[in-house]
């Protein structure tokens, strides 16, 4: 079964306005899905519906085979679908790195010996060796987010949801976190759902969902979405530079292929242009 199934999901904080409207999609096992949208498009609300932090007003969200409305299985669901948040500072609970990584394991009642091993292993996987006793406020933003990831991977989840986890980071931190996402998805087969306004980051995903005003505007591969372009413009997202420049060149009457996505593809197309 697909690890994430969203059916006719609607959500609102207040009675008047729907923040999410009739959202439908599925995420396959091992897939990397980016949910893109500008601030206020509803993308973070959607993320919080996926692991039952928010309950649908109507419709269903079934994550890792468990309905988010089912109170009996919600703890189990959250262990299987971990979440990294936007503010690196506000999600680390414990006074040291190792204790923080252990927090979820403690909650899950993992025995002492196994916990020691899992914490060590997770810290190593997230390349945090040597920082075990460091206090969170002495870490860089990228390190903080990797600690958050280590705390989640220690629980051996099926899905990891990243709610704008890179938006507060400097370029170095952003790269660090993206590299970890790549390893987790491509090498370990963990399903990744990343919420972002960085189209660059989204272009690496297998699939891209574009959100605008609480609705799902598009659900396709990034290449197909960049080819359509209008969707991104409507969603007020910035086009990646190669896409934007090839579009501008076409407007100048230069004939270029429609689906240019990367720098390399644009350079090749320009060199071959006649």
């Amino acid at each position: 079964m697909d690890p994430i199934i969203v059916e006719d999901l609607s959500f609102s904080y207040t009675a008047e306005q729907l923040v999410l409207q009739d959202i439908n999609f599925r995420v396959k096992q091992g897939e990397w899905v980016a949910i893109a949208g500008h601030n206020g498009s509803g993308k973070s609300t959607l993320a919080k519906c996926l692991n039952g932090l928010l309950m649908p007003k109507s419709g269903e969200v079934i994550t890792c085979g468990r309905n988010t409305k089912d109170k009996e299985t919600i703890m189990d669901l959250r262990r299987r679908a971990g979440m990294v948040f936007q503010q690196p500072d506000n999600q680390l609970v414990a006074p040291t790195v190792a204790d923080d990584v252990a927090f979820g394991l403690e909650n899950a009642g993992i025995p002492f010996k196994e916990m020691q091993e899992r914490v060590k292993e997770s810290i190593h996987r997230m390349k945090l060796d040597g920082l075990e006793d460091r206090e969170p406020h002495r870490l860089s933003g990228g390190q903080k987010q990797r600690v958050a990831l280590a705390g989640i991977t220690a629980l051996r989840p099926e899905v990891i949801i990243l709610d704008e986890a890179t938006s507060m980071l400097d370029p170095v931190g952003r790269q660090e976190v993206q590299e970890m996402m790549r390893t987790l998805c491509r090498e370990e087969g963990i399903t990744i759902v990343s919420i972002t306004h960085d189209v660059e980051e989204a272009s690496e995903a297998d699939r891209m969902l574009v959100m605008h005003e609480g609705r799902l505007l598009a659900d396709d591969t990034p290449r197909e979405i960049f080819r359509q372009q209008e969707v991104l413009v409507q969603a007020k997202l910035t086009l990646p530079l190669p896409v934007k420049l090839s579009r501008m060149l076409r407007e100048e009457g230069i004939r270029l292929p429609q689906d240019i996505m990367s720098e390399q593809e644009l350079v090749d197309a320009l060199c071959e242009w006649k």
Partner: protein
Amino acid sequence: MRVEVENVSFTYMKDTPFETTALRNVSLTLEAGVYHAIVGHTGSGKSTLMQLFNGLEKPTSGKVSVGEWEITPETKQRDLHELRRHAGVVFQFPESQLFEETILKDVMFGPLNHGKTKAEAETVAREALLRTGMPAELHDRSPFELSGGQMRRTAIAGVLAMEPQLLLLDEPTAGLDPEGQQEIMQLFYDWYREKEARTIVLISHDMNQVARFAENVVIMEQGEKQLAEKASALFTDESLLKKYQLAMPEHARLLKRLEDASGKPLDLNAFSDEAALERLLRFLREGDADA
């Protein structure tokens, strides 16, 4: 205002086991009327350096001159009050400084502290708010009812309302979406262009942003000044950028790739979509002429 830094060192928590040196013997001059940028990795000392420019930190040794003010380790806080009107700072996530009941009152805080009357302060505050894209109907709202982007604009208005000559920007667009970033950067640039004498010092990790707006770039690394160079020279020199582990701005990088692939020399000095487009069109048409 001209900024001159002479042999400045700065140490946090001196004489404790936590002692850290943030700046080591830094000397540099930032000319008035120029858009400067300070770049470097997290922990390179760039934020500390910038905080010396309006006396929020005083050097542990050495001297900083800003306009007619001099800041040395002995300078008293009260002598720096007047300087702060002329040198405004927009901190990273400046919305965390909002505290008043209404956004208008909040923006008036700075001007009032600097001796403006209520009426004068209100006039400059309203002007500053309009300039930052906060329409009059919002002026009586509580800052805590606003969206994140609007809070950022209000905080920026609070700094511009003091009518500074020198504007210090510490990653002013961090955490905003691309559209918001673009608008905020344009707003600062328009402010800068308005009067000849206005000076900006920008700290940013985004080299596209730095290349696009700054004329002069200072590179900091581990508390030491590495280089001060014209933006157009630095950002077109791939080996120099590599040496300091800085990313090449995306437009220049694309042109550089094209130059390498085609073997034809290109003018890499393009940091906006329009400039890059112009270079690409010229490249294609010259190719035509050759054939």
